[in-house]
């Protein structure tokens, strides 16, 4: 597992760099500016969470980093290489689960393994491990149409983990999960991230989740997305998610973020 990390070299440059990036969409009513001169840097092994109002442009930023949308101005680079099409070793969990409906749970996860170049001999055990982690062992041969919403999102997560990307772009990955499952998945994600030093960019609407997971939380304004605040979360790791809720530092962070978020849009519309 370390081998994939090595090929990437270990320079000190940030893994993801956005310099003054703007993104627009062409619509019937003209150009819609969605991301407005955003600059940010994500280090190797950093866990950054993005929060911001619905429709502000978070997903668009992730898509731009993954090379799926072109930036209108500014420069995006991953591992020092300018993004121009999907960069290497990126894993993306879309907001909407994009499972392949004609493949079973096992087949969908296998896609990640295949594209990571895992030899077929090792796949069976890797899949079994992942299914246990995702609590889906029983459903390994079910098709996506036979799964509940939360189960589909977990399969999506499994596919991304199977790919073992150096950079994980996760768009509301736990949004459809109950608290228990979310806690388990979060813990697993942190474990993987801590042992394998990957960079994570994570979108969520759950501020407690953001604080529990992040090194840094970036708060975005309503569309067009601008960074209105940056919160460095200096809680010790490894974190125990259950105990965090009673930690006063934790509550302080969440309140601070609420505050900056509240600035974005008046609560009494």
């Amino acid at each position, binding site marked *: 597992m370390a081998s994939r990390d090595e090929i990437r070299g270990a320079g000190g440059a940030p893994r993801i760099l956005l310099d003054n990036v703007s993104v627009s969409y062409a619509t019937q009513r003209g150009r819609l500016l969605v991301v407005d001169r955003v600059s940010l840097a994500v280090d190797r092994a950093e866990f950054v969470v993005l929060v911001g109002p619905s429709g502000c442009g978070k997903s668009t930023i992730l*898509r731009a980093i*993954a*090379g*799926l949308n072109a930036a209108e101005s500014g420069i995006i680079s991953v591992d020092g290489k300018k993004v121009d*099409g*999907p960069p*290497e070793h*990126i*894993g*993306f969990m*879309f907001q*909407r689960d*994009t499972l*392949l*409906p*004609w*493949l079973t749970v096992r087949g969908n996860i296998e*896609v*990640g393994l*295949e*594209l990571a170049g895992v030899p077929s001999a090792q796949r069976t055990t890797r899949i079994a491990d992942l299914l246990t982690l995702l609590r889906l062992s029983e459903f390994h041969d079910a*098709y996506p*149409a*036979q799964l509940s919403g939360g189960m589909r999102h977990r399969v999506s997560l499994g596919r991304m983990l199977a*790919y073992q*990307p150096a950079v994980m*772009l996760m768009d509301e990955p736990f949004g459809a999960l109950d608290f228990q499952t979310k806690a388990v998945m979060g813990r697993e994600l942190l474990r993987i991230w801590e042992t394998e030093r990957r960079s994570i960019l994570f979108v969520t609407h759950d501020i407690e989740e953001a604080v529990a997971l992040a090194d840094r939380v970036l708060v975005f304004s309503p569309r067009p997305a601008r960074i209105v605040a940056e919160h460095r979360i200096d809680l010790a790791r490894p974190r125990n998610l259950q105990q965090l809720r009673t930690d006063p530092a934790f509550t302080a962070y969440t309140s601070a973020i609420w505050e900056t978020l509240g600035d974005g849009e008046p609560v009494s519309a």
Partner: protein
Amino acid sequence: MSEPAASDEMIPLGEPGGGKAIASGSSLSIWLWRIGLVAVLLLIWEFSAGRLYNEFWSSRPSLIGERFLALVAGGEIWRHLGATVSEALLGLLLGAIAGTPIGIALAKYRRAAEIVDPFVMGLYGLPRVALAPMFILWFGISLLAKVMMSFSMVVFVFILNVTEGIRTVDPDMVDLMRTMRAPKSYILRKVTIPSIVPWLLASLRIGVGLSLVGAVVGELIGANRGLGWYVLRAGGQLDTTGVFTGLLVLMLVAMIANQIIFLIERQVLHWRPATK
């Protein structure tokens, strides 16, 4: 639409374990219905021929049956059936094998496609019957000529259906694959082709009929065997029973082909939940 659940898979059962049982029971009754329908039609035909209209134009099921049995008994039928089926089948397969990648290419390379698209349609608009001399010239009076005739009808169906089908592929699925830097061939195999399976099946269904038409047209322009040839000869001799016998065999061929495609469809699309 008033009943909450049909007996399809993926839909909760009305009664425990009911799904399978109902399915097999109904497949029997479907066959009974089909057979009954055929029987009624044949009876009407048999007894109205000669009464309601001149028998010359319609022959009679009994005469057709007799002729059919004679053809089978004499073994003559295999010569015609073999010729036509092999022409149509080869044409259909070649059409699928050539048309699918062309359709995919046209959908993927938009610029090039826009340039050649009108020409493809132009070629498609040419009536094959009128091209008969060219076919003879290029391919002779051989199996090849008929296969090519059949192919030339079928290939466009695949091209056009596949091109349109690819445009309905979920862009998110492709994007997701791209983020993992999946090679194009992998995307094709895992996303594009499975997405267009319904389009391929529809093309196959449409292709069955056209490949038979193509084979018959091919036999019309140069042949000494085949069901088309048989029908044509019977027609030329005002032998209506012969015409209908030939047509009957062609119908049976199309039906059997359809049943095969139905089985393929069940195999390939079993993941798909049913729409009500």
